[in-house]
């Protein structure tokens, strides 16, 4: 991920910023105005000093300077008779005031543009990131820690935003300010100008060096912070395990290790920043001392007016604040490029599963799902091998097999959470890869074993797939899933909050909610992926009875290890090591006397030989 070059990252961020041309143009105008006003101030102060000291000096300055015409016009107002030095001072004061107000107003616009462009880019990145995460396939999400993705979406977006806001436009401002300042100082007095600016190369060098160091530091720090989040989150999530093993010490050790790593990195960062800021300040101050000495000598020798020296010193004190800010900006650059790199790394992933160009919406004629010789796996190792079957409307296909045999993979291939590596899957003759994901997933309802509850009311959770569903549909779906009575007994009924903040549901209730969620959408094809494991057999029976009406013209796939869940299926596939080893109806498979029969024996044995084995157990 570090491979994303820092220049590339900046280019991309800048390109994003360039979309806001109007605002940026406005910002640039403000920058030039702000620099102009900013630089006018030392000139005016210099003139003021000369004016206060000697009439002639001020006159010279004023008549030589840019303000001569203004002086003439105001002289007219005051009349020739008034003290010209005092007149000059008043004029300079007015101009200073005007320049200062101008500086403030243009600085306001400049800052606002910086912040608002930063906010807009932050918004845009957030939306892009959110969209990308929603598009990335299961295989991606399975491999990353949610905490890491969340950190990127929050802290790294913030990092880029801060970079745009505090560094991008301000860099232009600094270049313009220091550049113009350079020009003015150099044209005023070459030697003194060079001395005043002697700090610039040093600061530039320090800034570059520090930026590189800080960038890798930010990368490492961000990564360690993610790790720390993970440690704490898992500790709190698994607190019962921690207690049961009395492993607080072990957990504290884990925490301390990660925590101290972040501390070490943060300390390095503080160190770089401290030496940077102070060194830059030192370089600047030394240049100022040199100006004072050389300029002082010149004033003593009479080759320079005191006002001119003051002007140089005022120039420099105006540059002091921006120079101090360079340290902060360097940090902004470093963090921005690290954060940008981390974000773009995610944004640039091409989702494995996406719509083909020109993909059409699924056109359901009957709703027949067919697997044609489907294989799936990674790096030559197949987890599914040559799977073929057909699920027709009104029919149920049951899939059973030992753990790791690939049952769930079959389920995940139907809504195209993954693509097969060989063979193809069709619905009504249309290859899944040729139709739009959205239309496919709307047609396929998959009920998974783990149910994620969103922090919302029960109603919103049931209606998750169709938030426009009317109340009666939500209630009906809940009733079908044998959850209606329970919900009605809840203190707030359908408005009861669930999820982390709300009431906690048992495993079986969660699975029933998940079933309600899916059937609310009346999908053309329903896949139950081991989704009744925590539901008792009787309730499952009632769910199935309630669903007969819904499933009579739809294909159903039931994956389960509980035979009672799929005994009634029209066809049962027994999967082992990714292959269909037996297929047929329950009765057919029993008479075959193969794996299925063994499994059946295994499952029913406890209740059949109960008396005998308990006799043994009791006797011993």
């Amino acid at each position: 991920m570090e491979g994303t070059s820092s220049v590339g990252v900046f280019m991309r961020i800048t390109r994003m910023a360039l979309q806001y041309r109007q605002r940026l143009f406005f910002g640039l105008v403000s920058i030039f105005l702000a620099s102009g006003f900013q630089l006018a101030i030392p000139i005016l102060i210099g003139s003021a000093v000369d004016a206060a000291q000697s009439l002639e000096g001020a006159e010279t300055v004023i008549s030589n300077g840019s303000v001569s015409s203004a002086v003439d016009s105001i002289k007219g107002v005051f009349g020739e008779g008034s003290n010209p030095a005092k007149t000059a001072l008043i004029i300079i004061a007015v101009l200073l005031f005007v320049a200062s107000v101008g500086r403030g107003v243009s600085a306001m616009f400049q800052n606002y543009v910086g912040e608002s462009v930063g906010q807009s880019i932050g918004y845009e990145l957030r939306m892009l990131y959110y969209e990308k995460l929603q598009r990335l396939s299961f295989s991606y999400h399975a491999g990353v820690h949610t905490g890491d993705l969340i950190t990127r979406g929050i802290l790294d977006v913030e990092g880029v935003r801060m970079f745009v806001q505090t560094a991008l436009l301000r860099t232009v401002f600094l270049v313009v300010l220091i550049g113009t300042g350079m020009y003015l100082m150099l044209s005023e007095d070459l030697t003194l100008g060079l001395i005043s600016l002697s700090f610039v190369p040093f600061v530039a060098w320090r800034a570059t060096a520090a930026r590189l160091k800080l960038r890798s530091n930010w990368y490492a720090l961000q990564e360690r912070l993610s790790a720390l989040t993970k440690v704490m989150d898992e500790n709190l999530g698994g607190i019962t395990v921690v207690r049961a093993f009395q492993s607080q010490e072990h957990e504290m050790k884990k925490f301390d290790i990660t925590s101290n790593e972040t501390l070490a990195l943060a300390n390095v960062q503080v160190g770089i920043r401290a030496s940077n800021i102070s060194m830059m300040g030192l370089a600047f101050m030394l240049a100022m001392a040199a100006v004072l000495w050389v300029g002082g000598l010149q004033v003593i020798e009479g080759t320079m007016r005191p006002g001119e020296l003051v002007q140089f010193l005022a120039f420099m004190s105006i540059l002091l604040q921006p120079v101090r800010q360079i340290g902060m900006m360097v940090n902004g650059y470093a963090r921005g490029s690290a954060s940008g790199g981390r974000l773009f790394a995610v944004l640039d992933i091409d989702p494995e599963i996406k719509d083909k160009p020109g993909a059409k919406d699924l056109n359901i004629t009957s709703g027949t799902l067919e697997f044609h010789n489907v294989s799936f796996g990674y790096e030559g190792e197949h987890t599914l091998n040559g799977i073929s079957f057909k699920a027709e409307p009104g029919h149920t296909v049951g899939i059973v097999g030992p753990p790791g045999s690939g049952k769930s993979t079959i389920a995940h291939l139907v809504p195209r959470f993954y693509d097969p590596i060989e063979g193809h899957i069709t619905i009504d003759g249309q290859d899944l890869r040729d139709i739009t994901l959205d239309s496919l997933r709307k047609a396929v309802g998959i009920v998974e074993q783990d149910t994620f509850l969103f922090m919302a009311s029960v109603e919103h959770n049931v209606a998750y797939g169709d938030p426009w569903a009317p109340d009666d549909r939500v209630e009906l779906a809940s009733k079908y899933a044998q959850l209606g009575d329970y919900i009605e007994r809840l203190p707030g009924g359908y408005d009861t909050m669930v999820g982390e903040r709300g009431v906690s549901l048992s495993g079986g209730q969660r699975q029933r909610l998940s079933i309600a969620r899916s059937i609310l959408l009346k999908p053309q094809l329903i896949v139950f992926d081991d989704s009744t494991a925590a539901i008792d057999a009787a309730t499952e029976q009632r769910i199935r009875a309630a669903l007969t009406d819904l499933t009579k013209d739809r294909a159903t796939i039931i994956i389960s290890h509980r035979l009672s869940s799929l005994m009634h299926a029209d066809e049962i596939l027994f999967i082992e090591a990714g292959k269909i080893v037996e297929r047929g109806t329950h009765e057919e498979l029993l008479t075959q006397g193969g794996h299925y029969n063994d499994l059946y024996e295994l499952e029913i044995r406890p209740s059949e030989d109960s008396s005998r084995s308990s006799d043994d157990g009791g006797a011993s």
Partner: protein
Amino acid sequence: MATRSTHERSHEIPPKASIKLGPTVDEEVFGDAYNGQMVRRFIKYVAVYKVLLWVAIAAVLVFTVSSIAIPLIIKSVFDDAINTGSISRSKLSTMVIIFLAAVGFNFVANYLQELIVGRVAERILIDMRRAMYEHIQRLSLSFMDKTEIGKLMSRLQGDVAALQEFLQTAVFAIGDLVLLIGIIGAMVWLDWRLGLMTLTVLPTLFIVRIIWMPYARRSFLRARVTSSIVSGALAENINGIRAVQGLSREHVNYDLFDIRATDNLKAANRASKFGVMMLPIVDTLTGAAMAIIVIAGGFFVLGGTITVGVMVAFVLFVQRFFDPIRALTMHYNVLQRAMASGERIFEVIDVPVEIADKPNALDPEEIDGSIKFENVTFGYLPDQPILKNINFEVKPGETVALVGPTGSGKTSTTALVHRFYDIWEGSVKVGGHDVRDMTQASLGRHVSMVLQEPFLFSGTIFENIIYAKDDATREDVIEAAQAVGAHEFIMKLPEGYETLLQQRGGNLSLGQRQLISFARAIVADAKILVLDEATASIDSYTEMLIQQALARLMEGRTGMVIAHRLATIRGADRIIVLQDGEIVEMGNHNELMALGGLYARLYSMNYASFDDIPDELIQQAMQDSQGSST
């Protein structure tokens, strides 16, 4: 305002979708900027670094003084060196040397203040987080049961960061205050008339600030709240991504997220407006101050009442004059935020540790493995006992199965063996010692626990099995895995024991996770094993493995099992039937069958597991058994 904007959009928002997520506004609301008690408590954490902080404060002061000195030296250059003729050259050199000395001080002080304040602040951040985290580790589970993880996480992260910022700010605020006073003092000292005239702009600034503050604060607050709502929505979507994709809710979520993000964008822009608004105001006042100096100061110079150097110094001072004021008002916000964060942090730290070791708690090396409940009454809420007057004894090496309908008190009974909670009445004894007289660490060593839902940590399988038992060897781990029948599937994984688990062990099946948690319990090698059998039915293959593993696990140990599987129940030496927090039957399978009570009735229903039995049938059985016993 929030309600209006929501109303305007109502046509886009689906009726059954939630918009609001994340912390509520009242949680974020600012408190006082200063809370003496909070600061005193915070100071305790800071006090550890007393010496360093004094050095830092000294550095801040030196930095400030040298910053004030520099314009004064420049003044002297003008007045003494430039204006006084022939000796001026050497005087200039002296001045420049003094200037260089000031620069040197300035540099060293600047370096030290940045370094020390930065590092101490980082250190304190870690200290505070550690203190809170460690405290959470000791809090009783009854606290954890009712506390959201997300909320604790935001305290462990966001709130400690706010306090870190506070510390940095506080130290620099001292500098700002000194700078402000120093500048005012220097100006008045140089020329009190000019000084006072310049200071006339100050009240204006304060008035403007006072008017500005409440509006600005509200807008800053709104920006923060909307931002955390966006973060909450993002986090939820990441966590629930499978449901989102499975139900094709992407478009709806995108729109909803857009609403939140746009809301935040607007709020942030509004806050920016309030932020930048101060710039022209401050600059206008700076301009006014400079105009006053130029006119009044210039006239004084012309009139000979002050030297030109004084005027130069004033001009230089006035450039820096507003910085500390601006910084101090900014600090005000940080202070408020820190106080609110501090309150939330100390709220956690102040939760009393209900279950703590007694001063002379026992830490027996060996125990006999017996468990004894004597007249135990216990509940989570006052006046609502979950367990009522429970009495039973488990002999060393015996396996006892706890059965009973949901809510009958099985889980609570097992939790008490581990002293997760303290009982109201009676006593729980492990190895003959009351659990309240033993150290929690020794309980942890002698009692191990397998939870219903196996929780695995990120890391390798090896790390998960060895877990906290640092002194276990690789052989121990493999042996344990072999004993529970996990070795085979582990070896089939690409990197065997070194395979990295995905979050919560996502790359393993539920049954496999269960086996790993068994192996973990074997490695922990405790005399007593408390096990909460999984309710979810597992495939029969793994189920068989698990049954075998269970037998291994129990070998030579005292077992207390919340049993759901009939096979497990029948295999137990004794069965305790709980109902509504009371023991209704106790005995082995045959005895209980002969008794013909609740157990016999439940058993005769022939469900594969007791938890399969629907509520109404249980009700029925309970009524029947009550009927028959009376």
